[in-house]
């Protein structure tokens, strides 16, 4: 009787571990499914409804100590291909203490009637408050028909605005966002990892979201709104979360207007050049996403409340990013647990899950190269090494199944083979922990000659997972909601510059 109970318990635990393994596959499956949808953008896109539409556009640039980058941004904006006099630039200076006022004085004189300097005497409240100062002034006047919310360091290609405004000819559209590309020059290993990440997270994922009917986030670096839409969502940007761009995207769609990603409208931005700076920026984004998850708690998986944001597929996609470390941890625990309960089943589950991960990796990497061949030329190595060379080795183990012919199956005696097996089965969690160690090393100031090889070995993907983990911990500990600005040094260049 007792052994029957034990067997029933073991069976229940085995099923539970299998469930965890399946849960661990959710982010891979969701991202694979999203990639499959990308090509459909060639058929289902918004181009048939576009018109040659050039509304008067007010650019709002929030600036806090941006003297190094502001001049180049304003010059790039003043050089765009758009009807003369149909765009203005409003720089909202958030009480900068550097040379921003002097730079602005020069630019206002250089472009009279087109560039405006709005100075806040008391600043430091964050980007959303700064933006709201400018938006309020723009909406007070009747001149602007559309408002472009952007970052101070972002460079616009000459036809980017035209590519975005053509969608606003359709009155159902409330906002359009552009493809923000990493443009640091000269680049580094980290900047090329980010550049490749942006192919997958923007050029691919947002095309798929266009096909699905709505976006999770309009990039804060280039977010074009119609005047009507801005007024409909309250005439201001949300200041309660750390993800004001995502909040605005959600509010626009909840107010009944569509938002679009225009993949061929390109802007260039400077991204963090150290893991420590990246960690700070992404923890802010991750915490913002968690705050959004909580702010819209009554919408998720409830299609009857909102047919886009409540959609099952949208919810799965959202949480597979926001709660990625939890899924990854579940997968690792599931495989290790299975190994302890029923070794052959664990090895089979390992082969299937990591084999599927390899297929997904191969498809997404090759397809990303095809989506943005120019970027792929620059960051092909980082694309291949994205999950980490060691993780690719684990995928090879799953495909080649060397353990099938070995006699290291679980015995009563623990051996080195068991330890090795546990490391391989729990690799997702281990590589995430290793990525955290790399972050700490970077923070401690180790040389890039040590940091970069470690990053290639353990991967940029696990680093993103570790950062998401950091965001969850910071949110649970209710750390200060500080708006940490990413420091920009003005090294962004557009191709051909």
């Amino acid at each position, binding site marked *: 009787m007792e052994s029957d109970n034990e067997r029933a318990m073991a069976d229940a635990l085995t099923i539970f571990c299998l469930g965890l393994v399946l849960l661990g596959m959710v982010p891979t499956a969701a991202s694979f499914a999203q990639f499959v949808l990308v*090509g459909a*953008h*060639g058929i289902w896109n918004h*181009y048939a409804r576009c018109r040659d539409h050039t509304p008067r556009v007010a650019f709002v640039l929030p600036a806090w100590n941006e003297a190094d980058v502001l001049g180049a941004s304003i010059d790039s904006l003043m050089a765009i291909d758009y009807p003369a006099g149909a765009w203005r630039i409003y720089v909202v200076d958030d009480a900068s203490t550097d040379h921003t006022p002097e730079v602005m004085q020069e630019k206002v004189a250089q472009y009279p009637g087109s560039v405006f300097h709005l100075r806040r005497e008391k600043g430091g409240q964050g980007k959303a408050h700064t933006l709201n100062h400018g938006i309020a002034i723009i909406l007070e006047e009747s001149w602007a028909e559309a408002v472009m919310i952007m970052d101070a360091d972002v460079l616009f290609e000459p*036809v980017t605005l035209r590519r975005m405004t053509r969608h606003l000819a359709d009155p159902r559209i409330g906002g359009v966002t552009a493809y923000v590309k990493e443009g640091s020059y000269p680049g580094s290993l980290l900047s090329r990892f980010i550049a490749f990440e942006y192919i997958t997270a923007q050029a691919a994922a947002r095309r798929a979201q266009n096909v699905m009917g709505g976006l999770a986030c309009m990039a804060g670096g280039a977010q074009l709104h119609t005047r009507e839409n801005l007024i409909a969502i309250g005439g201001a940007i949300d200041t309660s979360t750390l993800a004001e761009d995502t909040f605005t995207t959600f509010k626009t769609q909840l107010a009944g207007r569509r938002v679009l990603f225009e993949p*061929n409208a390109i802007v260039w931005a400077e991204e963090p050049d150290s893991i420590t700076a990246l960690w700070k920026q992404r923890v802010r984004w991750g915490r913002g996403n968690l705050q959004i998850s909580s702010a819209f708690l009554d919408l998720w998986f409830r299609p009857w409340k909102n047919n886009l944001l409540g959609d099952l597929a949208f919810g799965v996609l959202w949480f597979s990013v926001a709660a990625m470390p939890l899924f990854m941890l579940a997968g690792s625990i599931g495989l290790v647990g299975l190994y302890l309960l029923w070794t052959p089943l664990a090895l089979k589950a390992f082969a299937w899950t990591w084999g599927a991960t390899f*297929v997904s990796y191969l498809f997404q990497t*090759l*397809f990303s190269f095809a989506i943005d061949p120019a970027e792929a030329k620059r960051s092909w190595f980082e694309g291949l090494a994205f999950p980490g060379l060691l993780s690719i080795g684990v995928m090879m183990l799953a495909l080649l199944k060397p353990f099938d012919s070995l006699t290291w199956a679980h015995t009563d005696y623990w051996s080195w083979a068991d330890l090795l097996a546990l490391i391989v089965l729990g690799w997702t969690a281990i590589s995430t922990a290793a990525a955290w160690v790399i972050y700490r090393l970077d923070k401690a100031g180790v040389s890039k000659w040590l940091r970069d090889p470690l990053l290639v070995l353990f991967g940029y993907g696990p680093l993103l997972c570790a950062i998401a983990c950091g965001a969850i911990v910071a949110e649970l500990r209710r750390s200060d909601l500080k708006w940490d600005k990413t420091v920009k040094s003005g090294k962004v260049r557009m191709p051909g510059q």
Partner: protein
Amino acid sequence: MNDYERLLRQDSRNESRIFWCEIGIVLFVGALVVAYVMIT
């Protein structure tokens, strides 16, 4: 054809290119998977 139409055509073509690339890559990866299953 004016500049607006040229730009729209160029972008539509890029989206079609991506569509056909996806078909090609799916067939390539699919063939690799079938070959792997047959070999093992």
